[in-house]
């Protein structure tokens, strides 16, 4: 009886998984289809693949630098968020001061702010500072949501480290700063890595800030995709090729941090 239940459950789960993965599989297949196959009336599952779309869009159409731009923005925004955010998280984890919870809440609200409400003033501010169109503009913009993610996630990771360890380190003659840098950071390294990957993903996927703030030469992959919807026909093969390239690294990263993802997605409220 239990066995039958188990089999049924397995079947159900697999069915749901197929349903969830099918769309992605389809876009993957489409990236290897000729225009005729892609637009066929009856869905084509078996076909002679064409490998033209990838070189066409990334080399001839010059989308390769967009991959690089996406990497630059995501990596630097992540780095900035970690460097600024991790110490703040440490303070939230180890110090008690008036207004701590209010300040913590403030960080949460910055994460939740709808980009649409601040993107225009941000554009004007950055123009005044003379940094629009430079990668730093998007990096800073992405820091608005990544920074609070770092603060929230890392606070949890620091909380997981028993305070006794701090005390022991101080006894050994470390200053508090030294304890943070030399003892706590290495201990929290796995958490730091997971946070970094999540920051990277969020920045990599972001569209609106990147679109408004970045120069043509600095376009990221997400900003480049709509450019393939031309008045002379959406180039589905090429759109699919870009979509695959834009999502594959994310999937790989997801595999890596899957264990810590729950914490990241719930702002540290639930530990995976």
């Amino acid at each position, binding site marked *: 009886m239990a066995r039958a239940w188990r089999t049924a459950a397995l079947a159900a789960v697999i069915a749901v998984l197929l349903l969830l993965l099918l769309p992605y599989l389809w876009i993957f297949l489409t990236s290897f289809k000729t225009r005729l196959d892609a637009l066929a009336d009856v869905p084509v599952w078996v076909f002679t693949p064409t490998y033209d779309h990838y070189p066409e869009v990334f080399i001839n159409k010059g989308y390769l630098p967009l991959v690089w731009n996406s990497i630059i923005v995501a990596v630097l925004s992540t780095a900035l968020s970690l460097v600024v955010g991790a110490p703040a998280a440490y303070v939230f984890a180890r110090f008690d001061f008036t207004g701590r919870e209010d300040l913590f809440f403030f960080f949460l609200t910055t994460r939740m*702010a709808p980009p649409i409400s601040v993107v225009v003033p941000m554009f004007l501010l950055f123009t005044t500072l003379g940094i629009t169109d430079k990668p730093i503009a998007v990096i800073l913009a992405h820091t608005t949501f990544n920074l609070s993610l770092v603060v929230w996630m890392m606070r949890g990771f620091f909380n997981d480290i028993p305070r006794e360890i701090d005390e022991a380190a101080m006894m050994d003659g470390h200053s508090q700063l030294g304890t943070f840098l030399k003892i706590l950071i290495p201990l929290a390294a796995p958490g730091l890595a997971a946070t970094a990957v999540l920051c990277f993903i969020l920045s990599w996927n972001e569209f609106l800030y990147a679109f408004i703030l970045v120069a043509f030469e600095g376009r990221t992959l997400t900003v480049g995709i709509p450019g393939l919807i031309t008045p002379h026909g959406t180039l589905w093969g090429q759109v699919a090729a870009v979509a695959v390239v834009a999502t594959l690294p994310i999937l790989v990263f997801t595999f890596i941090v899957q264990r810590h993802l729950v914490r990241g997605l719930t702002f540290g409220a639930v530990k995976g």
Partner: protein
Amino acid sequence: MIKRRMGAVLDRGLAPLLLIPSVLLLLLILVGPFLYMVWTAFTDLHYALPGRAGSFVGFDNFRRLMREDQIFWHSFLLTLRFVFWVVVVEFTAGFSLALLLFHFIQRRRLFLTLLLVPMMLAPVAVGLIWKLLLQGDFGMVTYYLRWIGIIDTRTALLSDPALVLLTIIFIDVWQWTPFVTLIMLAGLLSLPREPYEAAIMDGARPLQIFRDVTLPLLRPIIALVLLLRGIDAFKEFDKVFILTGGGPGTATELLSVYTYRVNFKDWDLGYGAVCAFMVYLVVLILCAVFYKAVFWHESRAPARKA
């Protein structure tokens, strides 16, 4: 000795030293623009019309929102409907899936990882994928729906005013149900064993245990999932914008899409700021509820252990 004293001096100012950069950064790049946006809401700033350089107009924009703008309130209600259904369906489906995984499947790692695919994709990519799948002429999903007989050959999901909201909801469900599953599963795994053992001793039936033990224990996590999904659904923009642009008519004109139009089509930035402010206000309220419900107790008590 000197080094140690330096350390002591540093330590005294350590907390502010470590905290201030992050606060300053946020003040500069987010709070600054935000305050400017709030100021704009009280002006007539308009990028397209001459003579609208942003003079102070008091509460005119707010009055317009309250009294004249029916489309805003249409969008507002539409967004609430969208959020309601999205949250209800995603929660039900996601929780069910989590229970299945929890009770019947031991080696879940692979399942979980694959499950994550939809929610990790860039929203822009998700919009395009579904645009391709739902094309009325050659879309793969359209074809099979017609083949099964769910829709007839005269119907296309994104064109049909009666079905389009449902379709958008479905796509969001596709993307975010795994999120609910993931979190709820983590919640289930973190539950203590003792209450269950006690319940079984009392001879409770599985359904009773679920109702009287599991649900109450999971309450904080359920609140968390509902609120996080609610907040994100309320901000939903990318997918809908790519798939329908708010149409047909105003059938999918969610609040964020309407706000985008006022700002980036009409360039009525004064009024657009009011719309953006309203979105922000709702999110802020949800946020505060979220914080109270989920974190308040925890921050006072020792952290729950996984």
